[in-house]
């Protein structure tokens, strides 16, 4: 009898494996960032890479984000394929000009003559008491600005495939990993942060959403860690006879609008769950998409459960109050279905 063996990896291992395989395949790929070398990245995204590729290709940088992200842009234009890590997305403030006025615009400004093939990786998310400057989610802010692709994986499998796609893409790709999906030993354990990952390189297309759980009663659209929370909530709802469909967008730019519309046409109800701030963000964009494409199919006004428009508070009771979670998602979905 054949024994089935499954190859389980954490998300952080899946990401570092993807980078390693692309570095082996393509000598132009290299990594820059703070603590990406000996430390292996604060969230493990570059673990083991220094030992494999040496300090010429895994480059620890000074705390000079404008300089090293700008350096990645220049190197990309001149024929390399850099990966630059911005340790926490919250730090974008010190280097955003390089990101949105240069990385994201040069291709357009050049009339298509110059390409900037690079990946900017960054950590998002809270829930562990790291307060206002180290807990934000912020992909909506980047997605608002034209010229960069936005990738937000939720599982180890998607994380590897999307990283390989991002590195091979001729456009700048901002790759957001949530600390809570990485499978780190020092974060609250998350069983779904470990999953099956094929050893050989493969791609997951950027711009394609994925139905993580099929259901006919309500569509829950979300990304990243909130996919896990939504799946937990869906289990609870199933015991009450409500079948939720969980749609993982995986990318925000390009946005898989057809997948949103298709699911809403099927379930007639939409809940968007977002750990990013509620106003002017992903939740509004997804709801607009549903209204534009499936207005006649909606049986209830679309709803959203997002981070309130306040900076992330430190103290646990206040932070937990702000974060969407299993119970809040289930309650919001129940409300949509039962009225």
């Amino acid at each position, binding site marked *: 009898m054949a024994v089935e063996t499954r190859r389980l990896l954490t998300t952080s291992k899946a990401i570092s494996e993807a980078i390693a395989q692309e570095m082996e395949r393509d000598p132009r790929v290299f990594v820059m960032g703070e603590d990406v070398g000996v430390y292996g990245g*604060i969230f493990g995204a570059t673990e083991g890479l220094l030992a494999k590729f040496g300090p010429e290709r895994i480059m*620890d940088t000074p*705390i000079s984000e404008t300089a090293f992200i700008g350096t990645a842009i220049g190197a990309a234009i001149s024929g390399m394929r850099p990966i630059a890590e911005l340790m926490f997305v919250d730090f974008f403030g010190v280097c955003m000009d390089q990101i949105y006025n240069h990385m994201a615009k040069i291709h357009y400004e050049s009339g298509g003559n110059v390409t900037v093939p690079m990946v900017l990786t960054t950590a998002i998310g809270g829930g562990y008491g*790291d*307060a206002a400057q180290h807990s934000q989610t912020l992909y909506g802010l980047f997605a608002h600005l034209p010229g960069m692709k936005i990738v937000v994986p939720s599982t180890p499998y998607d994380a590897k495939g999307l990283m390989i796609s991002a590195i091979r893409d001729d456009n700048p790709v901002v790759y957001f990993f949530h600390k809570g999906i990485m499978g780190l030993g020092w974060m609250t354990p998350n069983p779904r942060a470990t999953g099956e990952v094929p050893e050989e390189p493969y791609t997951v297309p950027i711009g394609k959403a994925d139905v993580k759980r099929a259901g006919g009663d309500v569509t829950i659209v979300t990304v990243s860690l909130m996919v896990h929370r939504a799946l937990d909530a869906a289990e609870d709802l199933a015991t009450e006879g409500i079948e939720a469909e969980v749609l993982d967008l995986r990318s925000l730019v390009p946005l898989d609008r057809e997948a949103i519309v298709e699911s809403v046409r099927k379930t007639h109800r939409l809940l968007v769950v977002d750990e990013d701030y509620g106003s002017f963000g992903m939740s509004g964009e997804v709801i607009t998409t549903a209204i534009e494409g499936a207005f006649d199919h909606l049986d209830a006004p679309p709803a959203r459960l997002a981070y309130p428009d306040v900076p992330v508070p*430190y103290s646990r009771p206040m932070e*937990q109050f702000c974060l969407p979670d299993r119970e809040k998602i289930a309650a919001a979905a129940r409300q949509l279905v039962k009225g």
Partner: protein
Amino acid sequence: MPSNETLRALHHQMVRIRVFEETLQKIYFEGKTPAFDIAAGPVPGEMHLAAGQEPVAAGVCAHLRPTDAVTATHRPHHVALAHGMDMQRLAAEIFGKETGLGHGKGGHMHLFDPATNFGCSGIIAEGMPTAVGHALAFKKLGRDDIAVSFFGEGAANQGAFHESLNLAALWKLGVVFVCEDNAWAISVPKDKATAIANNSDRASAYGMPGVLIPDNDPVAVYEAAGEAVARARRGGGPSLIEIKTDRLLGHFEGDPQLYRTKAEMETVTQRDAIRRFERQLIESGAMTQPDLDQVWEAARAEVAEAVEFARSSPYPAPEAALLHVFA
């Protein structure tokens, strides 16, 4: 040489900081064992402790008044305490309690205290421009208060460092820039991040005096800071002081420090500035061993009381999260 009274005050300040940091270190791991979970326990999130860097805070802040502005970093407790922040409200904030400085909103990297004109930031080098602004306000208001900006050597490679130095010098503002060079920025050593050996050399590029204190000596810090503070107060403009100091602990608690050699960690532990200072105090006759013991005992009592206050204080109401976004 400062008076014996000043020496004793410096010692006392350093000891209460050390006891505070070591106590927090223990508390931080409550609820986080056997499996370390950064979200668990009475103090969640990152925790950056300043054990080893006490001479900087004590030596500089000894010259300050509560109306002088101080900006600090993600590693702020030593500076906050030396500048006179209420230890109980500091501890309560770290515990996320209603009685904390920010009612539990800020946490350990985001401490704001109008009573001592103190602020800090978890974004590297970003406390520096604000210090320049404090000094600008003092000038406009005709006050002889000054601003002091503490930052790590890692921060000196950020644009904000260079922009702030230039602006302060250009407008001749009363700012003292204090660089705490503990040789490490998380896992990246100074010599892998900065092209020159001493940040004090950079001061001249901005037209201000730069002083190097090579050995984490509280008296040397005290003397250099005295000059810089006096210059700033009399309208003589900014200066920069760089102190080669030591990070006795991890970058944050829970940091396995695999990037550091055992030998280096032993060296910094052995040259602990407080122990060295105590030997000097005894040799010079400024203090006796029983005097020293008493200081430690008093510090333990003070810290225990602050921790008790923090533990017994209530948490803020969950929905208080929605307050204070706007004035």
